[in-house]
């Protein structure tokens, strides 16, 4: 009885986090803020839902599997966000107008230099 209550609460909290993050997709102003918000909320949401599943089944093998899934999610979700945002910077997806871009100029220069070198070769 109390197990069911706890697992339901965890799963509900996880899916609520995901729902709020997907509402953020509509509200946030630019690509980079959307990307960072969705990554965080989705990782926490998956963690909470899997905890709820583990409480419901209460079995050793399920706990081991949940641990493995969480390990991979924690490794891969930030990696995917990093690669997508890097591609966005290189292809010059626009920033929000309030963004302070002073310190990105060094990166831009580096990219330009690289492009020139490859053209000469």
């Amino acid at each position: 009885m109390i197990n069911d209550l706890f697992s339901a609460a965890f799963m509900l909290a996880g899916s609520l986090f995901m729902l709020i993050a997907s509402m953020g997709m509509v509200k946030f102003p630019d690509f980079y803020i959307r990307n960072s918000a969705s990554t965080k909320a989705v990782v926490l949401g998956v963690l909470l839902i899997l905890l709820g599943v583990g409480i419901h089944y209460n079995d050793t093998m399920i706990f081991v599997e949940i641990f493995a899934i969480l390990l991979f999610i924690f490794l891969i979700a930030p990696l995917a966000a990093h690669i997508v945002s890097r591609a966005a910077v290189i292809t010059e997806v626009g920033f929000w107008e309030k963004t302070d871009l002073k310190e990105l100029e060094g990166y831009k220069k580096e990219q330009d230099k690289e492009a020139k070198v490859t053209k000469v070769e």
Partner: protein
Amino acid sequence: MVILINLFVAVLMTWFTQTIYPGIPNSGFATLLLFAGWNALLWLLTYFLSEHSFHRSRQIGSLVLFYLKELLTASLRVAYEVLTPQDHMQPAVIAIPLEAKTDFEITLLANFITLTPGTLSIDVSKDRKILYVHEVYVKAGDTEKVKRQIKEGFEKKILKITRNPNQI
């Protein structure tokens, strides 16, 4: 290395105790408790073998807890930002000078930065000395404060674990 051996032996010992004493219930939580107990016992035992790895395991544990706490606050902050009508966002791209040198250290730092409140790691420069980070909450253009927070929070903790002179 010691922490991996510790975990492995704890798994074995949990299995043994469950097969030897059939009175222990075979449910998930009982197993988890047993595993945690064996881990704590073995951790205390390493104190007599090498004090250094004892403190190292403690640091790794505290880093994991800190990471989970940061993830929770990050998600709550996103939820707050979505559900309140006005926005407090003041984004900026920040170039953080890196002290971490090896692949492992930089990967760990970048992954941790992506899951902490308001930040997203974009790229490392060609000579691996600068990490470019997109940060959403920069109060009054004070980028130095954000840099200090990241360098003294995560980078210090990670370097303390990965760089130790007498590693076993």
